């Protein structure tokens, strides 16, 4: 049987090109011979797999040309026809981690190839690969390379062979919310008693299912004078002018819309619609006010309850839009609203 084909992505540092001063090193593909940590992977693969190409890219270069470089990575990978793609490991390097995660997600989405990377759990890159790549837990420095390779290599082989991947605690990847069953050595009651003893003694223990927890932002102060406030409408329900002039995708949108409602007192079937693909659009199409309440806001404006309705509204589709993009859109929309003198925002979601 022929060897499984592996493509490896690393940054300028691990390609032994140079440190921070070489971080603008442009993307490059080296076919054949493994580079840097690729040697360790090759060793770990033995006769089972080989690295057929190494993509090298400077961290600054990547982060300054994200879209373009990601696209290139996908193209390069595609040309090499691998069975699995390995990124990094990036340990605690933030920009490297971000590049690994972003490219891994893109390769997963566009080429439907299995992808593995390795990071320190606090690396911000971990989030970008969520649900897409297996991110192996590493320590916070490259000194952990030997261990990282030992975990990543067999996982990569399993993925390349489309074998069953076990639970995160068995395989050593970061659990990002996908629950996988496996048989423990001890029955549940015994584990419960052990956990209880640790909890009583104030010793560290690990819950088997962490309760969902979330990043928070401090609430902004309330609007003091509503009658003179400028309020903006934003929606993730995909409301846009009829015909969807900007071609906002119905899911996993790559852009947000900014549209004028100057002089509009009511959204109608004839003038507006929804671009959202995640729910039955007929109700929203019939009367878009059901998602974006322009009619009511105009009434309240006329009655003097609010000072003014902002003349632009913003729209995205919540459906499948990546967390990272949603964040980016949110920040951009916030910036524009602030500079337009808006005082508060009503954001509607379906």
């Amino acid at each position, binding site marked *: 049987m022929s060897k499984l084909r592996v493509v490896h992505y690393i940054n300028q540092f691990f390609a032994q090109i140079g440190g921070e001063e070489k971080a603008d090193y442009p993307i490059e593909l080296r076919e054949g011979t493994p580079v840097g940590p690729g040697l360790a992977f090759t060793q770990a693969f033995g006769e089972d797999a080989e690295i057929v190409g190494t993509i090298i890219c400077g961290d600054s270069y990547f982060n300054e040309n994200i879209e373009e470089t990601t696209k290139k990575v996908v193209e390069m990978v595609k040309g090499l026809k691998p069975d699995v793609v390995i990124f990094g490991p990036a340990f605690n390097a933030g920009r490297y981690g971000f590049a690994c995660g972003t490219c891994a997600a893109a390769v997963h989405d566009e080429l439907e190839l299995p992808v593995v990377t390795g990071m320190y759990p606090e690396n911000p890159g971990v989030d970008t690969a969520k649900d897409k790549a297996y991110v192996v837990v590493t320590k916070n420095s490259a000194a952990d390379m030997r261990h990282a390779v030992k975990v990543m290599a067999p996982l990569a082989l399993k993925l390349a062979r489309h074998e069953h991947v076990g639970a995160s605690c068995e395989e050593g990847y970061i659990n990002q919310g996908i629950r*996988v*069953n496996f048989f423990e050595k001890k029955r549940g009651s015994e584990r419960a008693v052990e956990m*209880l003893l640790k909890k*009583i003694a104030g010793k560290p223990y690990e*819950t088997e*299912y962490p*309760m969902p927890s979330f990043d928070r932002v401090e609430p902004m102060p309330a609007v003091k004078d509503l009658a003179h406030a400028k309020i903006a409408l934003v929606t993730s329900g995909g409301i846009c002018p009829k015909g969807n002039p900007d071609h906002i995708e119905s899911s996993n949108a790559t852009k947000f819309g900014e549209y004028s409602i100057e002089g509009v007192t009511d959204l109608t079937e004839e003038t507006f619609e929804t671009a959202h693909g995640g729910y039955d659009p007929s109700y929203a199409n019939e009367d878009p006010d059901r998602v974006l309440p322009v009619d009511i806001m105009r009434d309240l404006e006329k009655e003097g309850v609010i000072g003014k309705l902002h003349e632009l509204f913003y729209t995205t589709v919540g459906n499948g839009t990546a967390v990272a993009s949603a964040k980016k859109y949110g920040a951009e929309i916030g910036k524009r609203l602030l500079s337009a003198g808006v005082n508060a925002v009503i954001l509607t979601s379906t």
Partner: protein
Amino acid sequence: MKLELGKLTIRDIRFSEESKISEGILYVSKEDLRRVALTEEKIKSADFDIARPGESVRITPVKDVVEPRVKTEGPGGIFPGFIAGVDTVGSGKTLALKGMAVVTTGPIVNFQEGVIDMSGPGADYTPFSKLLNLCVICEPVDNCEKHQYESALRMAGLKIASFVAGLGKDIAPEETETFETPDLLTGMKAFPELPRVAYVQMLQSQGLLHDTYVYGVDAKKILPTVLYPTESMDGAILSGNCVSACDKNPTYIHENNPIVEDLFKQHGKTINFVAHVITNENVFLADKERSSNQTAKLCKMLGLDAVIISEEGFGNPDTDLIMNCKKIEAEGIKTVIVTDEYAGRDGKSQSLADADKAADALVTAGNANQLVRLPKLDKVIGTMDYISKIAGSSDKALQSDGSIEVEIQVITGATSEVGFHTLSAR
């Protein structure tokens, strides 16, 4: 309260003319068994079969699993309130037939779950594949009400288990384990340094095929109460409960409650195992509030330092579980909770229907939505008529090679929320 639990391991079950236990072999006469079963007047006919570990046999739909036990000394009898009077049990001597169970099957409703595979991948998921199973297949009389059929089938299982256990009454156990719980004051004096721990067990109590009984009382009508941990070993708690087969406690699990057993192992060493608190899981929300309030109150009254809380069943008990956990933690008592998950077939959905940050120590028995392919087995005890009708299955589940693809939630005891099995998830 002190119970000496004698154990007699059954190495095989055989049908014969005469019912007896001899050299570890259980011989049973079908006639005797039938006579016992037919004392339930709503049962028209009863048949029996034997399923052994490793055999190519599937039992379905499983109603209950019961371990035969008999009281050999001391007050009361096994299954108080049903088979015996309502004397308080849990002391004296009890004999248990180990390595075997009585398994009742019968379609009370036309979408009944409960699968025990004796071999193949399905066998890994059910702890009952490791037992010699004496299967009881009962048909009801014509026009039998569902409630009556449920009750008759439940009683038939208990009666047959009691009959079988009675055969061993005079045989000396091979091994005896002693469990002792002193009364509160004595316990405090005996173990002044040890943390005081109790087990809080939530019992499913919501209607037909969703009920649990305590000393003969329907658990939905109890206020939370305190038992000595040995009481459940004598059948004080039993099951009328088989929908959502993976995470319901058959009577066998109540008799062999693993949390009770594992807390006893630490009793007097690292903890003082004070009590077994039972509470219910009702439909009416005010009942949930009341029961969790009372449970937290009892834990406080008992001066506890820590508890293990176990859940039973799917969905709404998550609400009871979180209420219990929050309120008990609010009393300054540390908790570990045991549950299972419904995270969807892809494992990506939120596992529980309720959550709270107080629930920071959780043991999971796995994702019940996980798909498993069960191969065709040579023999079916019961019927396969329902398998495509049940949760986690569909008409399409039956494959052309005779195998079926189902979610593990149909398998009896697969994700036991009292931690009877080893399945887990991360």
